[in-house]
């Protein structure tokens, strides 16, 4: 049986005009890295602050380590938080920052200084205890903020978009460090972010949140390859989106026709009948590209579409080409092969492209929850 | 000290101290008077302006502030000042803030001769007269007879008047208490040592009495309000204030104390660097007219130094005077001129009284 370090039970919070968190129930397994991914305003911060104890829920309960947190103030919860702007105390040294929580628990000075130094060693900042906070680099501060929380051995560590303020390079590196830290300490992490790449790279499980509810909870792979709702399909990873009406159903496959007259086939998600409004999502890396139909080298038969090159989006390994489908003038993005084969494509050059229907997914409009 | 720095200081202090008095405005048509409250009644000033075309600007003050202001400007900023007659000699010798009066420009025959003689005695320096009498009165006790019956300054220290009396923390109080203690401070003016010893005695007496003083009053209204509200039962006060209270509440009486009332006499004096001397003389002659002098006396509640004004004085005031001074003015002592240096001795004593617990 799995043990949950965090369990939310029908947790709700309403503000004057909207429902921030809508009767949410979920569990986070002990020792796992759990992310809550959602656009800003989806309620993820409210959720996190309810877990930390800064916001009182309107309904439901939070259990941490199996104990109900109803009425327990933030300073009594076995939970610590890494704040978005880190919130390191500028009036204290690095060592004092890390020892702050220990001091509040009445740990003797010598003891807490030793523990703080050990913790700084463990997060890779040996000998920095005497430095001022403003003498540290962004990444070092990040680690101090985590050390400050982990030194208290919390049941749960909450992280509120802590990488948001870092530049791209540093963010990439900190992602790896965070994952390593979590593995090394074995503490349960609950991480909120609007950056899907952070969520996918770091997490054991990810919850995609929208309008106060979880759209889907699963491993990063499940979210990516089997999105349960159009929202998840659109939010997690890049996707081509084609809106239209169901024109035919063939077992698990469904054919839709866009308003501009482009016909595309995809795997059906949920029940659909001809005439329903539907949306198809196709990932750029699922499609193949060729200057001729022969170039496509399809393993199994699939519809071949024609288009012209709109623009080239060069981004190293993530390079793609933006096309326009010939008849409908629909925009469509195709990933370029890593071989660099089509790096010489020209704007307005005619090309062929195709994708396997079972690797595209079709949702009926209005059946967003599957 | 160079001339330049003296001038500079004068300018700076003038700027700092003489708020309210417009120094720059020395136009021929303006008379600037520094004087006591009520000394220039508005209707009298208006009539003066109508007759002569000279505008009257008034700055209110008391003896000490008046001297300080004139000292700061070395006698500039005002065309006429009205200090008490005993405060002319010392400050003039020390600071040279006044100029002598040209008696040819004044209708001297309109002034009561005995008062003029008093001023001549006290305000003549190097054979030249520096002041003329304006208004006079006496300082005594104002007593709420419903609450207490006292008749001398030392009675203010009775145990049953705890926190119910008031005096000014100024030199007249020292003089009054000295007389009440059967001493004559005026006789010791010339003997600094003996005077200091006496003042120390008086100071000790006042300190012993301090619990009885509710506050040391600084301005007339503060005292009048204290008497009116019943917070005070008796105080040392000028006659005019006492009579004013008496008109409002007959229980409150102004009495000449047993040890004698102290007479004061306020004057006309010309600041050394006053610009509109002609206007000052015009004002002096104007206010010496009996009917004008009587109006002024009524406004102040005291007596004018001008001849013939007494006959025109308010009958109520005359009756009050008779009640307060049954023996007439014989028991009143006039202040002699204060020699320089004495006020420093008195100042220390007053500070000690103030600081005593």
């Amino acid at each position, binding site marked *: 049986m799995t043990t949950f370090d965090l369990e939310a039970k029908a947790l709700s919070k309403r503000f004057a005009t909207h429902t921030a968190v809508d009767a949410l129930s979920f569990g986070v397994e002990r020792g796992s890295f759990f992310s809550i991914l959602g656009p800003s305003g989806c309620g993820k911060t409210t959720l996190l602050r309810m877990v930390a104890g800064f916001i009182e829920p309107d309904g439901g309960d939070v259990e941490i380590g199996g104990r109900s947190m109803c009425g327990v103030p933030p300073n009594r919860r076995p939970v610590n*938080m890494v*704040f978005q702007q880190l919130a390191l105390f500028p009036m204290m040294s690095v060592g004092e920052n890390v020892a*702050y929580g220990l001091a509040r628990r009445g740990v003797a000075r010598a003891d807490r200084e030793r523990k703080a130094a050990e913790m700084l060693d463990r997060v890779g900042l040996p000998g920095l205890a005497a430095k001022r906070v403003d003498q540290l680099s962004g990444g070092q501060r990040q680690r101090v903020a985590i050390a400050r929380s982990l030194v208290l051995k919390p049941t749960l560590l909450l992280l509120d978009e802590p990488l948001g303020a870092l530049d791209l390079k540093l963010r990439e590196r900190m992602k790896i460090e965070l994952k390593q830290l979590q593995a090394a300490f074995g503490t349960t992490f609950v991480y909120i972010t609007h950056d899907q790449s952070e969520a996918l790279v770091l997490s054991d499980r990810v919850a995609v949140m929208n309008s106060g509810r979880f759209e889907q909870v699963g491993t990063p792979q499940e979210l990516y390859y089997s999105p349960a709702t159009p929202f998840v399909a659109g939010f997690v990873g890049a996707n081509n989106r084609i809106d239209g009406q169901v024109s035919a159903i063939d077992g698990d496959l469904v054919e839709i026709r866009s308003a501009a007259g482009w016909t595309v086939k995809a795997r059906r998600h949920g029940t659909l009948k001809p005439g329903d409004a539907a949306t198809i999502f196709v990932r750029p890396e699922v499609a193949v590209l060729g200057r001729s139909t022969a170039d496509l080298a399809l393993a199994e038969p699939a519809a071949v579409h024609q288009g012209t090159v709109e623009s080239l989006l060069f981004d190293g390994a993530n390079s793609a080409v933006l096309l326009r489908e010939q008849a409908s003038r629909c925009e469509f993005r195709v990933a370029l092969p890593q071989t660099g084969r089509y790096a010489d494509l020209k704007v307005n050059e005619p090309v062929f492209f195709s994708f396997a229907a079972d690797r595209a997914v079709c949702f009926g409009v209005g059946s967003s929850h599957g | 000290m160079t001339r330049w720095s003296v001038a500079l*200081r004068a300018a*700076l202090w003038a700027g700092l101290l003489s708020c309210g008095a417009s120094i720059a405005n020395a136009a021929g048509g303006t008379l600037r008077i520094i004087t006591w409250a009520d000394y220039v009644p508005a209707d009298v000033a208006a009539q003066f302006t109508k007759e002569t075309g000279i505008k009257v600007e008034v700055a209110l003050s008391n003896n000490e502030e008046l001297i300080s202001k004139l000292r700061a400007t070395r006698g500039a900023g005002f065309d006429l000042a009205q200090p008490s007659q005993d405060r002319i000699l010392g400050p003039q010798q020390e*600071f040279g803030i006044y100029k002598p009066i040209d008696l040819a420009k004044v209708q001297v025959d309109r002034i009561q001769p005995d008062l003029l003689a008093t001023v001549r005695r006290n305000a003549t320096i190097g054979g030249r007269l520096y002041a003329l009498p304006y208004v006079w009165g006496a300082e005594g006790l104002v007593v709420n007879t419903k609450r207490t019956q006292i008749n001398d300054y030392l009675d203010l220290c009775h145990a049953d008047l705890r926190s119910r009396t008031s005096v000014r923390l100024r030199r007249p109080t020292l003089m009054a208490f000295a007389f009440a203690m059967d001493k004559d401070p005026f006789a010791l003016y010339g003997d600094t040592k003996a005077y200091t010893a006496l003042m120390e005695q008086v100071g000790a007496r006042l300190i012993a009495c301090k619990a009885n003083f509710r506050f040391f009053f600084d301005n007339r209204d503060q005292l009048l309000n204290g008497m009116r509200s019943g*917070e005070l039962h008796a105080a040392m006060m000028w006659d005019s204030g006492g009579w004013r209270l008496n008109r409002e509440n007959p229980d409150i009486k102004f009495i000449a104390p047993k040890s004698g009332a102290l007479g004061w006499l306020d004057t006309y004096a010309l600041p050394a660097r006053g610009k509109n001397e002609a206007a000052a003389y015009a004002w002096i002659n104007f206010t010496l007219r009996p009917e004008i002098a009587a109006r002024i006396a009524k406004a102040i509640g005291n007596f004018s130094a001008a001849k013939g004004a007494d006959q025109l004085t308010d009958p109520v005031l005359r009756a009050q005077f008779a009640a307060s001074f049954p023996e007439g003015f014989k028991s009143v002592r006039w202040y002699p001129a204060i020699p320089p240096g004495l006020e420093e001795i008195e100042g220390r004593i007053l*500070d000690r009284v103030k600081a005593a*617990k």
Partner: protein
Amino acid sequence: MAKATASASQRLILWLLLAPALLWLFGLILLPHLDLALLSLRERTGPGEYAFGLAQYRTFFTEPLYWDVFVRTATISLIATALTLLLAFPIAWTIAKLTRGRLSTLLFAVCLIPFWVSETVRTLGWMILLRETGVIPGLLVTLGITEVPIEMLYRDPTILVGLVYTSLLFMVVPLYGSLESLDDSLIEAAYDLGGNGWTVLRTVVIPHASPGITAGCIVVFMLTLGNYLTASLLGGKNSLWFTEQIYTQFITRFNWEQGAAFGFLLLLLSSVMVWTGLRLSGQRFSDVMSRT
């Protein structure tokens, strides 16, 4: 060459811009102080005659009265500053952290109201309220709290009330500035790490606000020390305020020399106190001044 001219003209403009401030500084602050310094070093030898000497300062140290008043003024000013701080802190906290928009503007306005009337009128208002026949003693009798009206004027607590009331705004403003700049997440972080109200205040809020606190305390202390009206009117016969001594020396005793010496001693006292305050709170003068 062209560059040299440009920088010369820039320097001229700089001097022109600085000129009013320099004139002000020189003409109205430096010169009078120099003059006072010279004055305080004179002693009177005869009518209108003076010589150089330290008699004025000697008087201060030999006459216990002046020294007592001096110490008393400093002590009451310190107490008043501490009380103002205690009172202003929750106000500033409320304005900076607990209210938004219109309400916080309103609260600021409330702190400002006392300054819409002159200090004299304000102090006289207090006197009307507190005197024996005044509103508050009357109210106390009506409510049955005291049997007879008590005189509330002319007592040290009354002076303190008046001084605190007059100084409140000057404490609230710098405190507000420094509390407003305190990131809420720091407070939350401190709670999150196990702090309670008191420890968060002590370890996070006060250290963060300390430049503002020091600035407010310096301003209030100086204002209180230099206060004349409130102390002398509300204090009555026992007010014994040092500025009152200075006023007395200058105006009623005509003893400018003594007054100037007292003035300098007061200047010295406030400088020493400010310096000590900065030392004790570990602040730098420049940091604090940027908060005022």
